[in-house]
């Protein structure tokens, strides 16, 4: 099991996190479409950490078994938390003047999406999985 922890404290950490996710996805045999989906999802989640919590941690982990390869990303912070998760998962909802596609858009990019949030602890985990036999390509 390969694990990489990236502290998210400044804007450039968002760039580092999404680049690391893309490289790991590529090294694990994911196609360019999935690499792009993962990099984009990580970018959305880590930006949210900076914007709402100030800082946090992004942990990217490989979890594979005999049949499939999974890349898991956990983004955690100790910020104020998401007050209403259902609302935050609605297209067009935003509390920060953004376009409001962040969380629901991210969910559509990945195979697994879990969110837990209370004041002082927000954890969002996402995962992409591919069968070991095939590799997805974009076009």
């Amino acid at each position: 099991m390969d694990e990489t922890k990236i502290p998210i404290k400044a804007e450039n950490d968002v760039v580092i996190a999404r680049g690391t996710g893309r490289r790991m996805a590529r090294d694990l045999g994911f196609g360019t479409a999935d690499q792009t989906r993962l990099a984009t999802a990580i970018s959305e989640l880590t930006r949210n950490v900076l914007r709402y919590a100030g800082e946090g941690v992004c942990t990217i982990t490989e979890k594979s078994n005999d049949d499939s390869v999974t890349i898991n990303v956990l983004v955690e912070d100790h910020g104020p938390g998401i007050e209403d998760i259902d609302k935050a998962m609605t297209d067009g909802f935003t509390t920060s003047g953004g376009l409001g596609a962040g969380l629901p858009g991210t969910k559509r990019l990945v195979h697994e999406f879990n969110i837990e949030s209370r004041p002082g602890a927000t954890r969002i985990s996402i995962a992409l999985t591919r069968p070991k036999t095939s590799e997805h390509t974009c076009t």
Partner: protein
Amino acid sequence: MKIPILKLKDLLLTSIQEDLTDNDAIVFQKDLIEKVNRTGVKGVVIDITAMDMIDSFLARVINETANMVRLQGADVVVCGMQPCVALTLVEMGRELIGVESALNLEQGMEKIQALVASPSDTDSFEKESNGRG
């Protein structure tokens, strides 16, 4: 990191070659708008071939930049979006709404030249009004 913006006759040509932080994107937007204003060009081509990811923030900045350029009376074409980037943007429910786009730089140049050459709606309206008067 500064993104070069080149003036070519009555056009500005720029190519985003780096992985942008949010602040880089905002600085680029400001630079481009100021340069459109300073030079009075009629068209802007933004090449995004090298961008391997556009998330909701970058999509918003590109959209807004195109709108700001248009408000200054110039046309904009965004060209070279990678297929996987287009796929991801649409899956997220995000598009570059209302932004003229082209497959690559060559087609982008053809498109902007056609846009700049064609009279705008305002011009044709004025001509029509003058004709009647």
